[in-house]
């Protein structure tokens, strides 16, 4: 269908323009308040930080010190990047194996992966956190293994769907030419899987970067916090929340996401669509 020009198109453009502004208003509001003296934030949230309300970067300085924001950022980045890389590598290899080797293990594992996708995290959260503790998986490196395990279901399922569409002849030709299974995989199969890799990477990265409960229960949070944990930590148990620091940290938490979104928008939207069609 060609793009048809709507009649009265400018009215819709106007309506959607206003709607879009309303859509980003909550974020703008947080940015505005992050420059306001903390006592004014809950009292006058909708006013611009002018005159005596304006505190420059005070909230940012205090907030980053309070929760060690950059430390948390480093942890989040490390855990997300490494987990996604490990998930892509391991689950795509596994998916190729179980699609090509017909055995009871292959069938069983495939159905277990499907099954795991509908199990809510609350079902396993207590036992998983205890088990991870017993196995000393409470460090940023250990949690990668937990993410591989809990994220395997969706990834294996998606890779399997794609592997099935690859003609067997390509791989057989490589094997006849003398490739070992490892060479066949890395030189022939893996490059073909690239589009699915991007989809899986985006879906998993969105999940892991924002995940709160799993790292909160698994990590030794006295030593390692991720961004969501650090922000929740600001709320703390005692007394009133430091709204100034909170606003500033919310802004710092959003900035990397927006940069990432603007840079990879095309892939993100395609990944979401592809993921939804296969899921």
């Amino acid at each position: 269908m060609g793009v048809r020009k709507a009649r009265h198109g400018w009215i819709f453009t106007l309506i959607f323009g206003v709607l879009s502004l309303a859509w980003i208003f909550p974020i703008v509001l947080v940015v505005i308040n992050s420059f306001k003296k903390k006592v004014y934030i809950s009292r006058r949230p909708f006013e611009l930080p002018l005159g005596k309300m304006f505190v420059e970067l005070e909230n940012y300085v205090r907030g980053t010190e309070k929760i060690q924001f950059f430390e948390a950022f480093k942890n989040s980045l490390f855990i997300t990047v490494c987990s996604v890389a490990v998930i892509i590598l391991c689950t795509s290899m596994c998916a190729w194996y179980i699609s090509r080797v017909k055995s009871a293990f292959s069938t069983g594992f495939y159905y277990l992966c499907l099954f795991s996708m509908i199990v809510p995290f609350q079902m396993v959260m207590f036992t998983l956190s205890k088990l991870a503790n017993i196995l000393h998986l409470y460090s940023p490196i250990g949690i990668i293994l937990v993410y591989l395990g809990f994220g395997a279901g969706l990834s294996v399922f998606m890779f399997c769907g794609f592997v099935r569409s690859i003609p067997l002849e390509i791989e057989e030709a490589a094997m006849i030419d003398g490739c070992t299974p490892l060479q066949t995989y890395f030189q022939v199969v893996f490059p073909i899987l690239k589009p699915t890799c991007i989809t899986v990477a985006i879906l998993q990265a969105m999940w892991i970067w924002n995940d709160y409960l799993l790292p909160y229960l698994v990590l030794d949070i006295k030593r390692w916090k991720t961004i969501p944990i650090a922000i929740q930590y600001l709320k703390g148990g005692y007394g009133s929340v430091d709204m100034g620091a909170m606003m500033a940290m919310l802004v710092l938490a959003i900035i990397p996401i927006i940069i990432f979104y603007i840079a990879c928008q095309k892939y993100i939207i395609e990944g979401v669509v592809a993921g939804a069609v296969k899921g």
Partner: protein
Amino acid sequence: MQNSLKKYFPIFALPTAAAFAIGFFVPFLMGIYLSFCKFTTVTDAKFVGIDNYIKIFSDKTFGHSLWYTAAFTIVTVILINVLAFTVAMLLTKGIKGTNIFRTVFFMPNLIGGIVLGYIWQLLLNGILANYQKTLTYNSAYGFWGLVILMCWQQIGYMMIIYISGIQNIPGELIEAAKIDGATPQQILRNVTIPMVMPSITICTFLTLTNSFKLFDQNLALTNGEPSNMSELLALNIYNSFYGRTGYEGVGQAKAVVFFILVALIAVIQTRLTRNREVQQ
């Protein structure tokens, strides 16, 4: 090829399989077993039969959060899907600026639940302050607050899926309907909606499970205040585990019930909408 590949099991399949066992399978089985036990850590479990399940019924907070979650899920599923579909219809008509609007509407999805919760807490409490109220004034405020937050977050995501569904409808189909004299309403009801049924299946599935399993946003926005009245199921389970000593077994039993509910909803929903999809 099968035989040569088979020997490579330890390299190809074992890492994922082992991690899957640690990260999902073993905790899942232990979870089912522990729901029949009394325990505070995993090692001191004592088998007590269906005691925990009986205790769920006497726990009033669970019943309340079940209805609260059910109502929340129904409201958000309907609102999000209707609005996302409407926006998708309008944004496939070639309006100027479509790409920018799509980008803006999708953005909230990338922000995590905890951050979203605090953003909306500021905004909604700011508005309610004019009426001397806060989000935790009573459970209805928390309810509608969460509904607004969920709509804001999820409409963009579902819109993207609907847009790709609408764009996949062959143009001839709509042209043919027009030539046959169909009104726009008839085209929508008899051509567009049946053709995007697969997208509707996926979007209702995603919104259903997302709403039913919601945790982070609930924790950040109201944390169940006032006195557990705005607690969704996931938070209720969490609080049974970590908020009340001696209730770990009950928490695990609740988690099993929760899992069964999620599985039932997923199966029934997919059956229902799949049946309506047109064969292509």
